């Protein structure tokens, strides 16, 4: 069983003016954990990041409640003029984005290094 609590395992502010944040998540993200996931993500937007890179390479499974958390993050960051990039999607997580056609809405990269370099 997955742990309760936020799937966000690390938050790293990078770049010369610390306006880019790399968030690493881990474990399954389902209804049990998506509220904490969303809370952790939206807290970051208070600092008005230019970019939020969400590293999902440690997330083997995500359902639509996890996807909804990322959609809320996207809306909030875009409102402030920033961008959200998703990195390292495992095949099953990627398939959820494809089924819901959100793979055309988010910028998706193979890994966080690629996302940072883009």
């Amino acid at each position, binding site marked *: *069983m*997955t742990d*309760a609590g936020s799937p966000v395992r690390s938050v790293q502010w990078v770049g010369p003016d610390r306006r880019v944040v790399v968030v690493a998540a881990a474990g*399954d993200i*389902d*209804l*049990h954990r998506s509220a904490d996931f969303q809370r952790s993500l939206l807290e970051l937007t208070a600092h008005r990041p230019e970019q939020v890179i969400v590293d999902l390479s440690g997330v083997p*499974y995500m*359902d*639509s*409640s996890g*996807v*909804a*958390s990322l*959609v*809320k993050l996207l*809306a909030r960051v875009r409102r402030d003029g920033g961008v959200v990039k998703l990195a390292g999607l495992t*095949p*099953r997580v990627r*398939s*959820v984005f494809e*089924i*819901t*056609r*959100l793979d055309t*809405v988010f910028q998706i990269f193979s890994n966080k290094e690629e996302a940072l370099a883009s």
Partner: protein
Amino acid sequence: MTMSAFPDSPIRLSIASTPAYLAVVRAALERLCELIGFDEASRGGIVLAVDEALTNVIKHAYHGRPDQPIDITFRSVVGGEAAGLQIELRDWGERADAGQIRSRDLDDVRPGGLGVHIMHNCMDEVEYAPAPDGGTRLTMVKKLQARSDK
């Protein structure tokens, strides 16, 4: 061991409506799908569809109450064109109007409301029926011979 060793024995799980048990159901279903012989992509879709259906029961039928009953039955169908897996979810919560249980427009990018779309996308059959003694019976079928568009 394969499912042919026990083709006529449904597997029944009775769980409380707490999100903490979703991972337990997913793990059991994943292994069952392996035994039946579904490929990786189909297994992922079946597990996701059942997870979404259970999430809808918890959120909408039981309004987040974590102590309400959900019965889950997995039946493997062996041989022929119908070979595959039938999954039945039974709840005793508030029924949704049939017209409300539908996919939403995916071009409208907003959080929520994607579960029904996912269920229809991943499964070959999805059928909701009101149960005579209250609540809803949801039956979903995934055929072993996957349709070319799924």
